[in-house]
């Protein structure tokens, strides 16, 4: 094309990720000490977390733009990714058969995908980003075949359901294209703002939300989650549960803001029942789970329901609180998973909850950490889980959804029980087996302590974090709608 003026600066970060990812795939065969990949990954995280502060805002192409929102969210995602990488390393030290550069390469591709998703300015790029976020994960789940035969089942299930989600997504794209003649968010926005084809757009949004719901494992599209979680290598489960959910949630919020803000109230109405049902189903089914990972899968279904409650009233403040919820959930999950990975490395049968009995006597520190994260998941103050829920419910009640708020909070009482049960097993049951102890690297302690610290800090003083997110949203909105 003539006169194509590419602003490479805006794409620089993604470029680095792409190059690093490809590097792993090309060079990995020739390097025998596989731990190199971990260090490169870690450096990449630190480096990209640093340079993201200097990446210029602006468009790479019309379809890709780096702005306030995407830059902030990318920063938070890198923060989370840093911990995922550490967890992966901790896991791969024991499960050596998986330790290839490609493991990290696939993770990086997935990160790359989520960045594309956040920066996208049209639906096609968004779709590509969404797919790129999950396709590497299908591979990663399937690689676990070496240790767990069921992982193929999980991977295929996730793949097929994910494909179904893509199908709905493309269907939504078709509808939007038909209605507005374009897939660019801003053009769709102007069409939506005209207001004459509201119902048709809402029909398209329903399909779009189905696509997103499958990635977020919301009821009634949640059935893949427990199987996929159980099948994955544990760090990939953590990635799937915390990181991808957070990234997809932020992308959904972005779409709602820049493409559908005139009808976001109606979208909120659509989301209300999905959110409440997710909370109910996730909480109730978590009660009967015997496997820790499956329990966390159901709990993640419920938690995504809470996060969505922030979107129901259709206020921008609520969007900010949803992002806050996602962020808090990311760190609660990562923290809990770092405990699980430690245990799992030395005790392969630890994922059955009853085998955790008496853990507190043998490993008091890890039990205590698990206690912090579990109470946070249950939403008991003074932990971040409470604050996140609290803000979401403030916005919900402000929007006039009093009954829904009462229902949501009642479900949270049900939802507290599974966590209490894990704590009961850890702290109150007599030990059945003795636990093997092993070394735990400094970095993993770091991950554990930082996430515990964050969970407590955000529970006691969430003000700066919330202000940061709200301010980002505000600035983003100001610049986005300046021309309106």
């Amino acid at each position, binding site marked *: 094309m003539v006169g194509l003026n590419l602003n490479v600066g805006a794409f620089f970060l993604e470029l680095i990720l792409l190059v690093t990812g490809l590097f792993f795939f090309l060079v990995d065969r020739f390097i025998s000490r596989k731990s190199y990949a971990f260090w490169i990954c870690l450096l990449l995280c630190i480096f990209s977390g640093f340079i993201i502060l200097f990446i210029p805002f602006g468009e790479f192409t019309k379809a890709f733009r780096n702005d306030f929102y995407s830059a902030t969210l990318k920063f938070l995602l890198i923060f989370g990714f840093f911990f995922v990488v550490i967890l992966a390393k901790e896991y791969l030290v024991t499960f050596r058969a998986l330790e290839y550069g490609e493991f990290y390469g696939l993770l990086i591709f997935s990160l790359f995908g989520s960045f594309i998703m956040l920066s996208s300015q049209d639906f096609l790029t968004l779709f590509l980003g969404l797919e790129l976020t999950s396709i590497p994960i299908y591979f990663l789940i399937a690689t676990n075949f070496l240790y767990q035969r069921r992982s193929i089942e999980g991977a295929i299930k996730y793949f097929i359901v994910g494909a179904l989600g893509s199908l709905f997504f493309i269907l939504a794209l078709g509808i939007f294209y038909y209605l507005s003649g374009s897939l660019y968010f801003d053009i769709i926005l102007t069409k939506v703002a005209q207001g004459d084809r509201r119902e048709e757009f809402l029909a398209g949004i329903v399909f779009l939300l189905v696509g997103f719901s499958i990635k977020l494992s919301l009821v009634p599209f949640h059935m893949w989650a427990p199987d996929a979680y159980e099948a994955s290598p544990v760090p990939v489960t953590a990635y799937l549960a915390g990181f991808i959910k957070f990234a997809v949630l932020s992308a959904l919020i972005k779409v709602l803001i820049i493409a559908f803000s005139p009808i976001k109230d109606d979208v909120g109405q659509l989301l209300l029942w999905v959110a409440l049902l997710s909370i109910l189903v996730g909480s109730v089914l978590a009660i009967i789970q015997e496997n820790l990972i499956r329990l966390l899968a159901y709990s993640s279904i419920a938690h995504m329901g809470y996060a969505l409650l922030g979107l129901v009233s259709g206020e921008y403040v609520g969007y900010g609180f949803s992002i806050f919820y996602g962020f808090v959930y990311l760190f609660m999950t990562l923290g809990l998973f770092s405990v699980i990975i430690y245990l799992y490395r030395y005790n392969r049968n630890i994922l059955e909850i009853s085998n955790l009995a008496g853990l*507190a*006597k043998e490993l*008091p520190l890890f039990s*205590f950490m698990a206690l912090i994260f579990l*109470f946070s998941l249950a939403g*008991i*103050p*003074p932990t971040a889980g*409470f604050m996140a829920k*609290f*803000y979401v*419910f*403030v916005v919900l*009640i*402000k929007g006039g959804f*009093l009954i829904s*708020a*009462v229902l949501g*909070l*009642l479900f*949270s*009482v049900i939802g*507290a*029980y599974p966590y*209490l*049960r894990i*704590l*009961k097993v850890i*702290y*109150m049951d007599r030990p059945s087996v003795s636990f093997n102890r092993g070394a735990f690297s400094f970095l993993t302690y770091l991950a554990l302590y930082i996430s515990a610290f964050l969970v407590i800090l955000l529970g006691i*003083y*969430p*003000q700066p974090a*919330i*202000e940061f997110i*709200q301010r980002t949203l505000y600035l983003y909105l100001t610049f986005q709608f300046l021309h309106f």
Partner: protein
Amino acid sequence: MSSLPLLSLILWFPLVGILSILFTPRNRENLIKTIALVTAIVDFLFSLCLLLNFDFQNSGFQFVEKSEWLSIINSSYYLGVDGVSILFIPLSTLVTVLCVLISWDSITEKVKEFYLALLFTNIAMIGVFVSLDLLLFYIFWEALLIPMYLIIGIWGGPRRIYSTIKFFLYTFFGSIFMLVAIIYIFLQYGTFEYTALLGKNYPTHIERFLFLAFLIAFAVKVPMWPVHTWLPDAHTEAPTAGSVILAGILIKLGGYGMIRFLLPLFPNATLYFANLILILSVIAIIYAGLACLWQSDLKRLIAYSSVSHMGFITLGIFSLNPIGLKGAILQMINHGIVTGALFMCVGVIYDRTHSRAISHYGGLATTFPFYAGLFMIFTLASIGLPGTNGFVGEFLILQGVFLRDKLFSALGATGVIIGACYMLWLYQRVFFEKPSPNVFNLPPLKWNELIALLPMVILVFLIGLYPSLLLDFMKGSVFMILNHFMNIGGS
């Protein structure tokens, strides 16, 4: 002294102990216990400073501290005490000291976690009493569940897990409605500040809903009659320290919440629902009192007697006059002291014989006379014998209710008689009759048990003989609460 943030100091001082214990190796149990004890004692001394600096002329909030906390939702770190809450602070710190003492030898496993949980409980309890910001109040209120869940569940009796999960879910369920009400109030008036919310008017039905939402949270905590079932289980299965905290402070939070929030914030609804609550209180007094008569478990009996006594307290609160309200506050303190002491006494013999069944004992008075004497004092205080603190509280409550409605007063007074029946019968079965073979050669009281029980004996008589020592504190504030109430609700 006024420049020192005394309330924050009392509130957060246990954190020093928590941090020191966290960094103490877990095999040095004596050091951990000593740190906990010293922290608790110092905190108690601070709270005595608070009492000494109290201004009796000022019926509003004193020692007020306010600083920015969550400005985005207009919630601040806002502390203060008045005559209603001030007495609970030394009570909480005293109870913590006693709990450390009483658990000295009886907690043998996970010692470190136990004292961490105990000090954390202390922070949360005081936080509930001193916070004047609704959100802050709620956070402390809920945070208390964490250590209590652990204390009952880890160090409790055989059915501890059932009891602790029941306790947790019950109280969590109750608080949910309060949270909704708090958010609703915030959205109406844009603030969580207690003092700013006084004197606001709500539409009638909304006020009633808000009242009920708060009432559910407090009623579960008190616990009032239909939602009391968690208490006997939790009390019975908790370790001694857990029972003492439950009886001493935790169930007082409900009564305190009623006085602090229900009466001043929703006066019209209070008037509307007062008779209903009086009826529930009378049912609690009589039903729980009768239930005591057929208990075969020592702790369970005292737990049911708590339900009965808490019925008196709600009766006093909703008599809605100064005498009844003063009586209720005084009786909360008294009940904390007496029932706490009774649980400690039960703990003393439980540690020696490992049985809570009443039929397991008999004739303890001959084999363990000094202990029998102590138990007698607390039994009589629990019945409300003149000269002990129980008498003053119950008398004031019944007098207050009498001024409101003679029938309720009469019905409530039957509770005193039933109380005498079950307590004296209990005393007879455990201490007199033919000595059971299980009660010979019991080791004498240990130093920690003696130190824990003696202050209680002193307090029983001190308050019993000179009640205005405590009543003076609450005089002004009680009038404030009711005055305010009469101004708005006096229709």
